[in-house]
């Protein structure tokens, strides 16, 4: 986020409000404040400089504001102004309204919040001009709803799952996350049969049943936070992939760390946690993308194409 006055003022008011909520005498570390605001410690320090300057001399509106830097962090609190966050800005309101409008049951709430938050644009106009999806089909929605309940209530889920090549098989799983990547939903779960974490594509679940048996979350499970985490697997190898000159310019932007070949092809290295996933991803480019190595991955694509 660019550090313009509009962002800094919002952030400073949020910081004052947050710090005024609790015990105003106990210092908070710069790291904790940075985590709360989603910024760097340097930014928090720079915001505190502003607050120190503001309270440098007595001003009627800021007389009850207390700010001090201590050995372990800083103290900040107000008994007057800025004990609540500011109203939503136009973009913040837009983001909330867009999010609500994408669900079947969010439209009424979007209209109500839009009117109350005022700065939010009219929900009807947003609904006409913004959309994101795809909306999961009925079957996928049902599976996701059960997976979310299992995750939140820590109850086991019995899946009849059909992977890419295997026959449908029953698996009892402990759901930890629901992850969406480009319109595909995954249930990230501990699989009792595999005794390991597995990523289940929701549309490949043929049936699901919520069991009454509880599970204890495995603390060692690393949550998926970015797209690359979906590819993470202990046995991951790397594939060298070449893109033809026709599509190289787009791939160069997506993967700027690649290598140019004299004939115009663009080479990149991609992790291979699941060969099926990589093959599907590359086959969308047809013969404009080629796996150069490892040979095992080439063989996999050969078999897949048939």
């Amino acid at each position, binding site marked *: 986020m660019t550090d313009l006055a509009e962002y800094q003022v919002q952030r400073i008011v949020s910081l004052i409000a947050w710090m005024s909520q609790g015990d105003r005498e106990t210092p908070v570390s710069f790291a904790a404040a940075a985590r709360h605001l989603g910024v760097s410690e340097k930014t928090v320090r720079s915001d505190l400089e*502003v607050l120190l300057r503001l309270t440098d001399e007595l001003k009627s509106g800021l007389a009850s504001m207390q700010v001090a830097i201590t050995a372990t962090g800083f103290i900040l609190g107000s008994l007057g102004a800025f004990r609540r966050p500011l109203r939503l800005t136009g*973009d913040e309101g837009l983001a909330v309204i867009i999010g609500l409008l994408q669900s079947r049951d969010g439209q009424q709430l979007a209209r109500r919040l839009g009117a109350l938050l005022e700065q939010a644009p009219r929900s009807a106009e947003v609904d006409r001009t913004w*959309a994101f999806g795809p909306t999961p089909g009925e079957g996928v929605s049902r599976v996701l709803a059960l997976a979310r309940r299992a995750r939140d209530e820590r109850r086991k889920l019995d899946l009849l799952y059909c992977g890419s090549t295997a026959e449908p098989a029953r698996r009892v799983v402990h759901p930890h996350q629901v992850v969406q990547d480009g319109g595909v939903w995954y249930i990230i779960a501990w699989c009792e049969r595999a005794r390991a974490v597995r990523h289940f594509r929701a549309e490949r679940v043929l049936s699901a049943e919520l069991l009454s048996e509880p599970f204890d979350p495995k603390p060692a499970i690393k949550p998926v936070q970015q797209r690359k985490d979906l590819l993470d697997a202990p046995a991951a190898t790397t594939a060298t992939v070449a893109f033809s000159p026709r599509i190289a310019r787009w791939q160069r932007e997506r993967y700027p760390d690649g290598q140019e070949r004299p004939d115009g092809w663009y080479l990149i290295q991609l992790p291979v946690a699941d060969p099926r996933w990589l093959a599907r991803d590359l086959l969308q480019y047809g013969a404009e993308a080629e796996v150069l190595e490892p040979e095992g991955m080439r063989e996999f694509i050969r078999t897949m194409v048939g």
Partner: protein
Amino acid sequence: MKRHPGRRKVTKAERWLNLLAFLLDHRYPVTREEILSRVEDYQQDWSSGTETKRESVRRKFERDKSELRKLGVTIEPERQKVSGARGGQEVEAYRLRPTDLYLPYLELSGKAPAQPRPYPLPTISLKPDEFLTLRRAAARVLSLGENVLGASAASALRKLSFDLPLLEPADGEVVVHGPVGQAFHQVFPVLRAGVEGRRPVSCRYYSIGRDADEPRVIEPYGLMLSWGTWYCVARPRDRDGLRVFRVSRMRGAELLAEESQFTVPDDFAVRSYLDRAPWELADGPSVRVRVRIGFPHSRWVLGEGLGDVVEATDPEGGALLEFGVRAVEPFVRWLLPFGRQAEVLEPADVRDRLAAERDRLRALYR
């Protein structure tokens, strides 16, 4: 803190915070004269006496009001009668109520507020199911990522979770997205301004079908994120009808003059394009393509809600499906990973395209 010798530079953020605190401290309207002579940074030049400087302070105050409006803070003048030397004369006076500045209170219906309520503000009460809807909406908008409104979504969420701490999505609900190119950061804000202001946009667009990079002028009606890719639904000025443009294939976008504003038909809704598969997003006429898909791939296709089932072809769950295809290339490439499990029955040209694409791949992986 050590006092700087002479006049110190006051940043805009400091001036705004001073102004807001000053106005909040007065529960009655304050005249512009009083604001400009008492709020730090205005006061030095306002009090110096030269008319040029005072005029520049007035302009600065007007700019500040206008920029603060973007933050959701409205400082509008009230006409106020003053007594004394200018008895009976009306002057501009300003008042900032807590409702004009602070977020309304949010609460879960039936639950006592967790935080003290220091200001008189309205309360938004959410039912438990509305709270869950809002929480899922929060997770969804965060998926817009830093590229689009993700930063605004994150800051909105931070504000809303002040009263409702459980609103922040936990690790249990995540949306991930792939990288976008540098050009996206230039193009997207221009398209957004075009959609919101109904102003045409000029750009270069790479058409993959024609393998050509051409200048275009489009009227952007709406923006959508579908299957992880951003699209703009727009009317090209040189053609009839609406087209779907992939944002990542646009370059050098520029907003055209306000005079050329366009009108969007009342029945337009970008949502109607949302759940279309990539092969349904092109301009051409839709061709019905009949495909036999073996089990288990047929289940996945049905699970994703793609195609119309014509008949179940075998007891294991294979199916005969029909698809409306406007762009053959993405359709054929979608079928490739199914290997021999997917067989195009008709029309012949699509069947031949799939066979040719498979031959090219076989040659590549020989």
